């Protein structure tokens, strides 16, 4: 009886989840199986697999999927490589400095994602800060292709999502008993060996969390690829929005969104399996 009443406490949360997560997903799922609409209707009467068929039939759409996933994976990797030294440094810093460094890492989050992405276009554009400086210095004749390509998108995405990698890494590193490293040292391990055999493996839970976070955020991002990629880097999210809003084809857009979500889920699962920690 007590147990039952206590479980009532999760009802509000359960209701919220149902209303705002389960219901929309179900709607999208159902929508993806509707027949396409005619005469400007978003969808037609009855059900069908045309939404999915269109995605797999046309290379233009199909190829956006590996492109998106690869963009996500590369961004995640770049974030990890950039974030790890930052997290190590902050974890090892004196308490006095730690707050300041923390603030610097978090500061990108204070500025909206649109403005941050726009900032990158100012830097990377053909007549942007970098290119015009290099041209004025006489180092280049023609602008370097920094934007409207995968390079620019990965760069901007990595910047935008870096804090989401640093924070879990930092929390993993800080929860590590400093005596563990001393123990390794007293057993004869040199600094690099300690990092390779102790610090890094012990921080694996943070690596895992950070990678999953950044990957999921990166493949589902819209604003940054749209602005920095200038619609020339075709990610699945861009095509989904295009299908839903511009082409006004709800079943097709929904089908694409689901395919992207499922693919991302599979990759996250594989990653989690590969990095599973028996000790944790």
């Amino acid at each position, binding site marked *: 009886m007590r147990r039952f009443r206590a479980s009532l406490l999760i009802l509000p949360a359960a209701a919220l989840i149902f209303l705002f997560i389960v219901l929309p997903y179900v709607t999208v799922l159902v929508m993806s199986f509707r027949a396409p609409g005619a005469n400007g209707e978003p969808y037609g009467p009855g059900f069908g697999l045309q939404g999915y068929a269109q995605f797999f039939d046309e290379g233009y759409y199909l190829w956006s999927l590996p492109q998106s996933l690869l963009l996500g994976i590369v961004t995640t990797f770049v974030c990890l490589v950039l974030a790890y030294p930052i997290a190590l440094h902050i974890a090892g810093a004196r308490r006095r400095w730690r707050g300041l460094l923390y603030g610097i890492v978090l500061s990108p989050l204070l500025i909206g994602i649109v403005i941050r992405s726009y900032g990158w276009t100012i830097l990377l554009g053909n007549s942007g800060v970098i290119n015009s400086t290099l041209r004025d210095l006489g180092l280049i004749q023609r602008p370097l292709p920094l934007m409207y390509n995968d390079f620019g998108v990965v760069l901007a995405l990595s910047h935008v999502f870096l804090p989401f990698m640093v924070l879990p890494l930092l929390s993993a590193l800080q929860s590590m*008993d400093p*005596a*563990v490293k*001393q*123990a*390794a*040292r*007293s*057993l*004869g*391990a*040199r600094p690099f*060996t300690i990092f390779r*055999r*102790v610090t890094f*493996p*012990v921080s*694996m839970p943070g690596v895992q969390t950070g990678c999953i976070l950044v990957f999921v955020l990166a493949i589902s991002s819209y604003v940054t690829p749209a602005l920095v990629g200038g619609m020339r880097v075709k990610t699945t999210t861009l095509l989904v929005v295009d299908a839903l809003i511009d082409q006004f084809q709800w079943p097709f857009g929904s089908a694409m969104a689901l395919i992207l979500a499922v693919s991302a889920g599979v990759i996250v699962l594989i990653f989690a399996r590969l990095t599973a*920690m*028996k*000790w*944790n």
Partner: protein
Amino acid sequence: MTEVSLRSLVKRYGKTEALKGISLNVRHGEFVSLLGPSGCGKSTTLKCIAGFEETSDGQILFDDRDISRKLPEDRDIGMVFQSYALFPHMTVAQNLAFGLEMRRLQKREITERVGRAMEMVQLTPYAERYPKALSGGQQQRVALARALVIEPKILLLDEPLANLDAKLRDEMRGFIRDLQKRVGITTIYVTHDQGEAMTMSDRVVVMFDGEIAQAAAPEDVYDKPASERVARFVGNANILELPVRTNDEAGVELGLPGGLSLTIQRPVPAANGTLGVMARPEQIALTDPAAGHLRGRISKRYFSGGHVEYHVETDLGPLVVLAPTSQSAKEGESVGLDFDASRLWPLPGRTGSAESRA
């Protein structure tokens, strides 16, 4: 087997001097405890020996070789931490193998030595477990085996039992002590628990404020403390300040209230005026109110299984007496107190002289 010598070891953190010139010799295979209150510099001493802290001044010698500039990883030390500091992502066997792998031993030898070490601490059935799946006592034994399996020159332990419950702590005391004797390794053990230091060590080093107050066998630290502070830190101490009646080669006669006297049959230099003497609670016996050296009234009585602790109000102030349960007295009862004069210990710091009192 290695001998460790600290020579005028000084450690400064900015302006604070954590160690103010520590000199100590630890012999081959000796078990020495560093005992002292929090902040007295026990851990700092250990960290200097291990190499985790650089010394500001002085030398650390292993077998007459100065190692104070060597890196910790080159000192060949086995260290056990209060938090155990096991590698959480390695099994028990992997934890033990780590130090041997660093020494680039052959796989076969590693397996063999790890196996022997696990047997030594009775952990063979737990070889494939991760530290999280072990009890505190088991983790402690892994930490101990991990430090010993590399056959280090010396073993350093920093409050290794502080996180265990009382019963397990008693068990581990004996376990560590036996193991140390069996292996015969020179050991320095840090603790703030005087009971632990007493039961385990060959020698106890009492430290206060970054200095060594006394380094002696447990019995001597207990019975013959170098100062009042040592006397009070190591167990319960009754300290009496008594007027000196006579003082010659034969001994010192001390005056007691009611015209009685106590004679310490040992010459005490410079004991004129008054002399501070220490009596441990079990060195005072309860007697008939008419007999004994001193009269008193029992104000508190605490039963603790094997014996009873009495707090007695006397003309010389409150005293603590530990008596066997067979000899029982009630609160409020008048009693006589009988001192064992042969075990009264004069405290040098408390010796007053006639001139300085005048």
